[in-house]
């Protein structure tokens, strides 16, 4: 990126060299992408969700393509926090990049175990995944009930040694209520949106495209939903927002910042353009040059 422009942003007292992050679950722990992306150039890597013990995830097929997007039902397969700390985190610590660890669980105690294990490990922030549509506690995911969100946020904040980001689901009637609950619980930031629950049926076989039947929709198809929800939340809470959902280009990222995001995560597009996070950054710099914007923070909440 052009050195004359200021791309730094700040969330919960932590400085990021630029607002571009990689969305959880789309970038592993960066290891697989290091051939295509200089991890040192990213604002942050948000890792794939990690749980207290290893999770096998869902049966296959786990993905299906949809118009301008995809459905996934991976089921948060992960090696567990112990392997994650010793291998993935050690790998990421070699780079000059902020590390945000995505934390998942099936019970509050599960989340707390991971949060405790991550204390003092070099993870800069924690992103709490209370919104995976493929893992459920009862009928709803944790993130669909404002009271539960507030309670879980409080409990995590009490034990966390790093700033806490609550990741919100779009699969609710009014996401502002959930954002307020996270803020009331003491969250340092919120990130949104996770995937939108969807389904695909093969009409020739009369079978579900995914073994899990339902999955999370992501990709450019959901970008306008993300813009709207970031906008709504930015006008409801004071804590910073990490915006995500179908970001493919620099323009998409700037759109989310104008709607109110302080930082932006690039997700599904990593899958089909392995160098895309860097491409998004370069395109943002081009727009800044054209619009004569010298400080990237100018974009935050810049819509009128």
């Amino acid at each position, binding site marked *: 990126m052009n050195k004359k422009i200021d791309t730094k942003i700040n969330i919960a007292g932590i400085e990021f060299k630029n607002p571009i992050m990689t969305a959880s*679950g*789309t*970038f*592993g722990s960066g290891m*697989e*992408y290091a*051939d*295509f992306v200089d991890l040192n150039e990213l604002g942050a890597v948000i890792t*794939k969700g990690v749980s207290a013990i*290893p*999770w*096998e*995830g869902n049966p*296959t*097929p*786990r*993905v*299906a*393509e949809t*118009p*301008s*997007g*995809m459905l*996934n039902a*991976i089921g948060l*397969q992960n*090696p*567990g926090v112990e*392997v994650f700390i010793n291998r993935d985190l050690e790998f990421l610590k070699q780079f000059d990049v902020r590390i945000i660890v995505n934390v998942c669980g099936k019970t509050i105690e599960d989340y707390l175990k991971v949060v405790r294990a991550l204390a003092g490990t070099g993870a800069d922030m924690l992103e709490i995944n209370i919104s995976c549509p493929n893992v459920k506690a009862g009928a709803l995911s944790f993130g669909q009930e404002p009271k539960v969100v507030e309670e879980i946020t409080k409990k995590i904040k009490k034990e966390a040694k790093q700033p806490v980001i609550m990741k919100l689901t779009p699969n609710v009637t009014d996401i502002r209520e959930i954002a307020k609950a996270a803020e009331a619980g003491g969250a340092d930031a919120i990130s949104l949106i996770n995937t939108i629950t969807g389904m695909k049926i093969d009409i020739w076989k009369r079978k579900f495209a995914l073994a899990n039947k339902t999955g999370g929709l992501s*990709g*450019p198809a959901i970008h306008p939903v993300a813009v709207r929800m970031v906008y709504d939340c930015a006008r409801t809470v004071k804590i910073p927002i990490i915006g995500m959902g179908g970001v493919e280009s620099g323009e998409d990222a700037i759109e989310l910042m104008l709607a109110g995001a302080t930082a932006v995560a690039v997700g*599904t*597009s*990593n*899958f*089909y*353009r*392995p*160098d895309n996070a860097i491409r998004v950054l370069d395109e943002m710099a081009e727009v800044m040059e054209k619009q004569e914007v010298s400080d990237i923070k100018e974009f935050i909440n810049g819509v009128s």
Partner: protein
Amino acid sequence: MAEQFYETAKVISKEIIAKDIYKLVLKADKIANSAKAGQFVLVYPHLSDKKLGRPISICDWDKDNGTITLCYRVTGENTGTREFSSYCENDEVRILGPLGNGFPMADGNILIIGGGLGIFPLLGLSKTLTGKKTIALGFREEIFLMRDFNEYGDLIVATETGITDSFKGNIVQALREEGNRYEVIYACGPTPMLKAVKEFAAEQSAICYLSLEERMACGIGACLACVCKSKEIDGHTNVKNKRVCKEGPVFEAHEIEF
């Protein structure tokens, strides 16, 4: 770790080799230079609503000319593969590869078994393996790439309908009737065929390498979509799942469970 390249390839030629089946030769120097038999590439459509790369096995490659040959079936109208079939010479397309582990090289009395579209990665394998080879190919109704395979070993062909002097039935039945024994077996094809090959190889106490297929998104081991069940806990995933795109697509038959 083997290097992978994200490059813009140029179309050298395209031809139709059977109904809905195309052969595409691409100029992709880096990938051609490091490709191994059994590896694959992701080919990204230009279509704005089709985002994911299509995994296509590398059928053949030419280091000197920097080209790779891909064979694929067009899966329908408005699909990525339909788009690929419309390419002309000098058209450009983004590709990622070479992906996956590829077939390990072995010697001895070798049997190569392919079913349907699964025969494509076996052409490069047949070409690379030295020594005595039997190549067994199973098709539904239409036979393709026969002449190419014929150069590299003794052929056994089976079809559902028994056309053009082929064995009528499935390819594993054909091999049982033939009754020969093999030391190393390589196979790629539909899952029911692979299951039958696994049994056939066990009966013969042959070393057996199977190339699997699964829906995937990233092709490089990050999305964890394309896993298969493994017998033991995998060193990377730390669960009984192996990534088809990374630890595979080729596995020793005893490592995996169907």
